[in-house]
């Protein structure tokens, strides 16, 4: 159990007061810092703030982490570009998924370390990968001399050609085919739902309609995952301003309140050694979030769940309790339940599969858009025309997972 203190969880003192997003595209040919500044200034303006009001800065992961185009600019580069004067700053790639930066910022404002934190996530993977094929996390191998050798956790998978998260998540998918009878037709609903919603998102990468036949005939990447089960590398930056809730009254739009965060990792921090091969860390992060709130899955009006690979979205559906363990296949069968007018509108801006791999932050952005009622053509309306009041957001897959429950107004 989460060691939640008596009374209100500290993160509930935080709000997302502003959101901003740069241009998003397959290959924009712009620097990561340039895109970040665009998103950041948009978020500051949206929050009704001036640059001088920002006294905190956070990102995931920054500092040249990962393969080219993955990490985004380091916080010192953004601080200097905008000449920010900071009371608190934080960046890095370890922790509860990409949203570790938003969670850390929420706790920073709650603790009085900062008042308004600019949090950003920037990718330029589209430009970095150029016209070549997509890279695995460990880099693509080639023959010849001078090929580096690998230590750490990669040594256990790279020798076997398991070089990409696609391979590792395919293992989760196949285990689900075996244990729960998941089918490709069911899995395909995640991709098709994303594509349907992306058509109403002007920034989405892929907007042409996708049929089940299109999905089933796509080339296989690593069974059971086909091309459309894998997200689309892109360029773009997303920024949010995390503020103390005492400032929320000054906003000209509804504040998005942080209700609870989920950060647990109770199993082994490993892809191939995690006890439950069908869930992994999503199970723990989701459980710890619900331990910190009186809200329940039935209160959630929209879910923005990480879909770097389609399998991850269905893992999150079960982990967060929107359906029972092993029941996500039947739950998404036909796609009605997860459509914008369904019981659980899912990934309403197209997710990462069609919207673009903004790496978790696109999903946080869309949760805010929906809670603020600014979704335009893709705005979710619940029974009786009610605007959504509670959104669940999840980032990560395998041994990496973080989740947040966001609300319009205090709940």
């Amino acid at each position, binding site marked *: 159990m989460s060691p939640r203190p008596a009374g209100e969880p500290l993160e509930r003192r935080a709000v997302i007061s502003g959101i901003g997003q740069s241009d998003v595209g397959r290959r924009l040919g712009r620097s990561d810092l340039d895109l970040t500044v665009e998103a950041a200034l948009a978020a500051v303006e949206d929050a009704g703030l001036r640059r001088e009001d920002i006294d905190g800065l956070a990102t995931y992961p920054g500092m040249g982490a990962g393969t080219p185009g993955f990490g985004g600019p380091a916080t010192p580069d953004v601080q200097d570009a905008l000449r920010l004067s900071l009371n608190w700053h934080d960046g890095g790639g370890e922790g509860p998924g990409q949203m570790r930066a938003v969670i850390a910022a929420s706790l920073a404002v709650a603790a009085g370390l900062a008042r308004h934190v600019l949090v950003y996530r920037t990718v330029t993977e589209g430009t970095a990968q150029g016209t070549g094929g997509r890279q695995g996390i460990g880099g693509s*191998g080639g023959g010849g001399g001078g090929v580096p*050798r690998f230590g750490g956790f990669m040594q*256990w998978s790279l*020798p*076997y*050609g398991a070089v*990409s998260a696609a391979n590792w998540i395919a*293992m989760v998918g*196949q285990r689900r085919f075996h244990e729960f009878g998941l089918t490709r037709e069911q899995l395909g609903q995640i991709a098709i739902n994303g594509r349907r919603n992306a058509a109403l998102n002007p920034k989405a990468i892929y907007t042409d309609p996708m049929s089940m036949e299109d999905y089933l005939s796509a080339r296989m990447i690593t069974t059971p*995952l086909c091309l459309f089960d894998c997200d689309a590398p892109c360029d773009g930056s997303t920024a949010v301003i995390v503020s103390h809730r005492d400032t929320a009254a000054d906003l000209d739009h509804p504040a998005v309140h942080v209700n609870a965060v989920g950060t647990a990792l109770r199993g082994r921090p490993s892809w191939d050694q995690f006890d439950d091969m069908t869930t992994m860390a999503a199970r723990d992060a989701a459980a710890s979030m619900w331990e910190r709130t009186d809200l329940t899955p039935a209160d959630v009006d929209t879910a923005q769940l990480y879909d770097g690979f389609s399998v991850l979205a269905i893992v999150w559906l079960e982990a967060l309790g929107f359906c029972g363990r092993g029941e996500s296949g039947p739950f998404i069968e036909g796609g009605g339940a997860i459509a914008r007018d369904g019981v659980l509108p899912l990934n309403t801006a197209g997710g990462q599969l069609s919207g673009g791999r903004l790496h978790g932050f696109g999903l946080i952005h869309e949760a805010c858009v929906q809670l603020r009622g600014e979704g335009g053509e893709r705005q979710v309306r619940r029974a009786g025309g009610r605007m959504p009041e509670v959104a669940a957001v999840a980032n990560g897959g395998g041994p990496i997972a973080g989740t947040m429950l966001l609300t319009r107004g205090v709940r």
Partner: protein
Amino acid sequence: MVAHGPQFRLLPRLGDDNAFFWTSGADGLLRFLRCNACGFLIHPPGPVCPRCLSRDLAPHAVSGRGRVETFSVNYQQWIPGSDPYIIAWVSIDEQPDVRLTTNLVDVEPDDVQVGMAVEVTFEHNDDVYIPLFRPLVGAGA
């Protein structure tokens, strides 16, 4: 077509903690670090038994038999020139919570099933012996 592995193998960097594992196949045996106090197999290798916290640890040969827990047939050309190859997570019979990521060999991709009994075989490559798994002779799936 019977699967092998990727066309080219990226290799592990050997050090004091992992060299025993990657060279164990020189005599045809698969070894894991084992706690001499409580018998727990420790993988990946570490400095302490995560069950009883003993530091009395040593490599220990196992039968080399295991089960396919899940698998994927890879088609993407991450490693150019590769025919489709089978990646699997294999659990070790002596302690099924220990799994290896590996390739299944000497088997048609269509014949692989979760739960299938397999046994280790080694591919000698430079200074390492890569543990691979093939169907256990005489075993049913």
